[in-house]
């Protein structure tokens, strides 16, 4: 299970990478594995604002639709329009080419509530042991 050291993680399996006072977010390798083949990603519009924990996107597989949540709050400044034509990128490169949105950070202190890479690795190991999906 791939984990990106430079990201912080929400319990709902989103990653966030900070770049100055902007951030980029997407879903983790664990999340895409749970979803299996991603067929569509529904993204918000530039200019939309969301609070930490608020659903801002939806990921569809053949048989499911899952909400994606903002790991921290902010205003969307860019969306990854490549995902519309190439949803399989989410399965292939969840931390890189399949970023979902870039946004300005509303409150940097919200990052403190998130897990770092090591904590997230332990977290998904525990989830796996529960046998959940």
């Amino acid at each position: 299970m791939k984990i990106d050291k430079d990201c912080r993680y929400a319990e709902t399996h989103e990653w966030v990478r900070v770049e100055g006072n902007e951030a980029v977010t997407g879903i983790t390798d664990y999340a895409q594995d749970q979803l299996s083949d991603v067929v569509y990603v529904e993204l918000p519009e530039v200019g939309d604002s969301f609070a930490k924990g608020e659903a801002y996107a939806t990921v569809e597989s053949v048989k499911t639709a899952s909400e994606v949540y903002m790991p921290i709050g902010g205003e969307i400044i860019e969306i990854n329009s490549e995902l519309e034509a190439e949803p399989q990128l989410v399965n292939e490169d969840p931390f890189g080419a399949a970023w979902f949105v870039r946004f300005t950070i509303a409150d940097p202190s919200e990052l403190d509530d998130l897990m770092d890479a090591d904590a997230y690795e332990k977290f998904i190991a525990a989830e796996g042991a529960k046998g959940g999906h």
Partner: protein
Amino acid sequence: MTEPLIFEISSPGRCGASLPACDVPRTPLPAGMVRDDLPLPEVSEVDVIRHYVRLSQLNYGVDKGFYPLGSCTMKYNPKVNEVAARLPGFARTHPYQDPDSVQGNLTLMFELQEYLKELSGFAAVSLQPAAGAHGELTGVLIIRAYHQSRGDSKRTKMLIPDSAHGTNPASTSMCGYTTVEIKSDARGNVDLEDLRAHCDDTVAGLMLTNPNTLGLFDEHVLEIADLVHSCGGLLYGDGANFNALMGIAKPAQLGFDVMHFNLHKTFSTPHGGGGPGSGPVGVSQRLAQFLPGPIVVPAMAEDGWVGGPAEHADEHAEEHTGKHTEEHTEECHALRLAMPKHSIGRVKSFYGNFGVLIKAYTYIRMLGAEGLRQASQDAVLNANYLMHRLKDVYPLPYDRTCMHEFVLGGPPPEAEGVHTMDVAKRLMDYGFHPPTVYFPLIVHEAIMIEPTETESKATLDAFAEAMIKIAEEAVIDPDLLHSAPHVTPVTRLDETRAARRPRLRWVPPRQD
């Protein structure tokens, strides 16, 4: 073994229909309004018939074999129903004809309203909704209208068990309610404590399927009704599983305030490949005025009248049902269509899927009360028999007497890496249509089996033996399941590709 698309067998100049010549003077067509091209196929009648006959042969229907789809009630579709619906006196009537000229239709609808009332105990019925989901939307709108009429605007939530069909929460959202999920307990009943904790004056009601999607009759149904009613809410019944209850229990007596029927499940009208169905709604007396309409009422009835309490059903039944002879028709003529006094409005155009209503009516007249009770009893008998034949081979999450259907919890645990989907696909190689899979959501890898009453013991045994064989194969040779089906017209289809690159229509190949 693929059949070309109708567009691909098209040949310019062909036409499959014969039409009369124009026998009136022609009027010039309006300039600038006529289309240049109409890209429809051009085929002969022979082409049409062969194309559709060959396509039909790629299908599996109830007439071909066992179709144990849980919660769909794939019972045998009597052929007499098809004859009845095609009687020209019915099929060739226009909905806006003078009611006096279609008393035959109105009589059939009125009597069907009465029969559904009698079976369910409800005080009034509307036949207008076209499908189960349509009936659900109707029911939730009625609940909303009821609370609004009492100035009770605090009620913003609808309680829905976690085992419910997706149409339940979808319908409540359409009516502006928030869905609150209620847990099921270890025996598959609604968790009474969870329900009790959520019942307050912000709740519009509870949507309950009983028997539920696990095929289980809730052991606390009367307490559930009490809890919901005592906080001022209403109890909605999803009648998809009514095939277990005809002559066994009347939902109105169990405490339901409003319920939809699925005529295409319980009352033998054919599924048609996905429709048309019919989803009439029955209600208690206090909700009758909110029904969608128009409904059929005696012509002499007051405006807005929607029928008396179910106790008077016998009276009506005598007056308006029974053998139709010339004198009888003259006696009980004069029915009309009318809107209930505070109707939620019409939920579609015209009066309902009349052609489907005829089939349900015919079925009820042929079976009678005893026949319908027999049907429900045998549906439950068949389901329990099949469950007992399979419970030692497949995981059974709820080891209780089931009603007309039951749910298995996936392939045997010894079959590593084998999923419910693989079992389903392998069943096709044995000549059976698979059961419902992956529903309800509260059972992991669910397999929902509903045999219905029209299947013989021999068929049930054959199915059980196939399932047992597949369970063995799942352990010894799982690839046989992973690569199934093998003998069908097509093998497993790439659904990912269909969703990633949707091709929803034929597009002519580019002239390169």
